[in-house]
């Protein structure tokens, strides 16, 4: 931002520390944070942790295809029916999930904030048009639409993120607009206007800092939904077939008839990873919600 952010309250440092202490007083928040840190570290180290190339077809010492091996010291979670190492796939699958979750969160909060602020600030026709658009998107059934969109745009992670953002922004936009309407009644906005501040200055300097906690909240809620959606789309076979993700692994296992062979080692780990990461996202946002709306906590 420009020089407008010079007004830094002296107590800000202590405010941050208090906020952090209060945030981590919530057990959900702590659990969520720990899970996230673990997955992010594993995701960074994934290249080193994966003993094999996740797509490499492996052979045993005597030249046989290393297909459907049970877990062992060499293959911690066994191998797939094509002789690929499941553990290596699992750790490499962390990266697409985190990528999808984080980019979708940024997208949802950016788009939701932009629409909410524009509608609430300018009012009138802009408001009416944007809010009608919001109603329309809210009226769409989420899962079928995301699947159709992601499938038809073509199989890639970016398209999944795009589809999720396109369908999830309205919730954020609505709440942010409502918050903006109350903000607009406050005296500091009026004061800024009287001193001749431009629209962009009022929005950037006076409004955005007050809106940011809300947009972060909606962003953090979207992390989980985006990861879940990406997994579902991949499982249905409309995902990127070249990216090893948890949804792709489950689709691979399902399509290879691993169900009837009861290959728990192939089905359980990717699903558990999805559950952990997504639940951690919900835990984090719950803790955060308690922090910014202390009254809700009962």
């Amino acid at each position, binding site marked *: 931002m420009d020089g407008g952010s010079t007004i830094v309250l002296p107590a800000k440092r202590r405010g941050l520390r208090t906020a952090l202490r209060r945030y981590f007083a919530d057990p959900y928040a702590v659990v969520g944070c720990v899970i996230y840190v673990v997955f992010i570290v594993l995701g960074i180290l994934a290249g080193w942790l994966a003993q094999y190339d996740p797509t490499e077809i492996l052979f045993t010492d005597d030249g046989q295809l290393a297909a459907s091996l049970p877990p062992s010291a060499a293959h911690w979670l066994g191998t797939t029916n094509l002789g690929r190492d499941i553990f290596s796939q699992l750790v490499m699958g962390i990266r697409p999930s985190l990528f999808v979750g984080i980019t979708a969160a940024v997208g949802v909060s950016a788009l939701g904030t932009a629409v909410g602020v524009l509608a609430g600030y300018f009012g009138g026709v802009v408001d009416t048009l944007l809010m009608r658009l919001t109603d329309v998107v809210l*009226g769409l059934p989420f899962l079928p639409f995301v699947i159709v969109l992601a499938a038809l745009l073509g199989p890639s992670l970016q398209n999944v993120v795009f589809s999720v953002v396109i369908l999830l922004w309205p919730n954020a936009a609505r709440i942010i607009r409502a918050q903006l309407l109350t903000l607009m009644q406050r005296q500091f906005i009026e004061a800024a206007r009287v001193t001749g501040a431009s629209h962009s200055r009022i929005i950037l300097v006076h409004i955005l800092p007050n809106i940011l906690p809300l947009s972060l909240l909606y962003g953090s809620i979207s992390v989980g939904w985006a990861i879940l959606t990406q997994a579902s789309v991949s*499982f249905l076979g409309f995902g990127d077939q070249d990216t090893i993700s948890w949804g792709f692994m489950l689709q691979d296992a399902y399509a290879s008839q691993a169900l009837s062979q009861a290959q728990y080692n192939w089905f359980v780990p990717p699903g558990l990873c*999805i559950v952990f990461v997504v639940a951690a996202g*919900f835990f984090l946002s719950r803790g955060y919600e308690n922090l910014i709306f202390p009254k809700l906590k009962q």
Partner: protein
Amino acid sequence: MVCLTVLILSFGLSRASGNLAISIAGADASAEDIAKINHELGLDRPLPVQFVDWANRAAHGDFGESFLFHEKVSSLIEEHLPVTITLGLIAIAVAVVVAVPFGILAALYEGTYIDVAVGVVALAGQAIPSFWLGLMLILWFGVGLQWLPIAGLDDWTGYILPSIVLAFVAIPVMLRMTRSGMVDAMRSDYVRTARAKGLARISIVAKHALRNAAMPVVAVSAVQLGFILGGSVVTEVVFNIRGVGYLAWESIGKGDFPVIQAVVLLFSIIFVGLTLLSDLVGAALDPRLRGR
């Protein structure tokens, strides 16, 4: 308004899916073959003309013919819809039966380990991808214990696992709503009055508190039914059930856009209808929501 947008969207979406003529004729078909197929299907006309034509017919219940099944789209849907609706209704019933008692329990034992356990399930339950839950249930009850069939709906036992999976879409939300509604109700003045005049605890909970706490839950179950039907795309694929969700999956995979258009439209109309129903039910139960 919403319907019009959905019409345009579902039309536009499916046309964005690439050239159908190529997928019918095969990748190495000659240019003339492709042009011929395009002409037969009316795909060489300008897009707005195609859209108006399609919307007009769709309004009369004619969605054209599936390119791949060579059957009328409307009869395809008629064939697939009952299964999906049946499963959805069973699932929402299961969700209510599970979520409401546990929500009440959590509220009555607020702050105890029961409450915490319910809270964790409500939050973490949302994190379980429904297709994976389906796979796990198949592994345990279908393959491992061999109690239940792993796919299809040959008899009533086939309905059990898919309805559990679909119910799980709605359970977390309904659990949380019941709990918070009951917590509020139990703290209210009328419950204190009822307690003060010496009513039995059971009658306070069942008559005074629950009636008030249940209103939003009943209303929201219509919306949740919409989510459950949306979730049927994934669940029907996992359990190999030939419902509308399966049909959608099949036609998306093959770019059969008359079917995609119709199914997306159908899902949207059902979803909007259920949201409206939810508002109406809410107003019917709570006079304060009426009028304005």
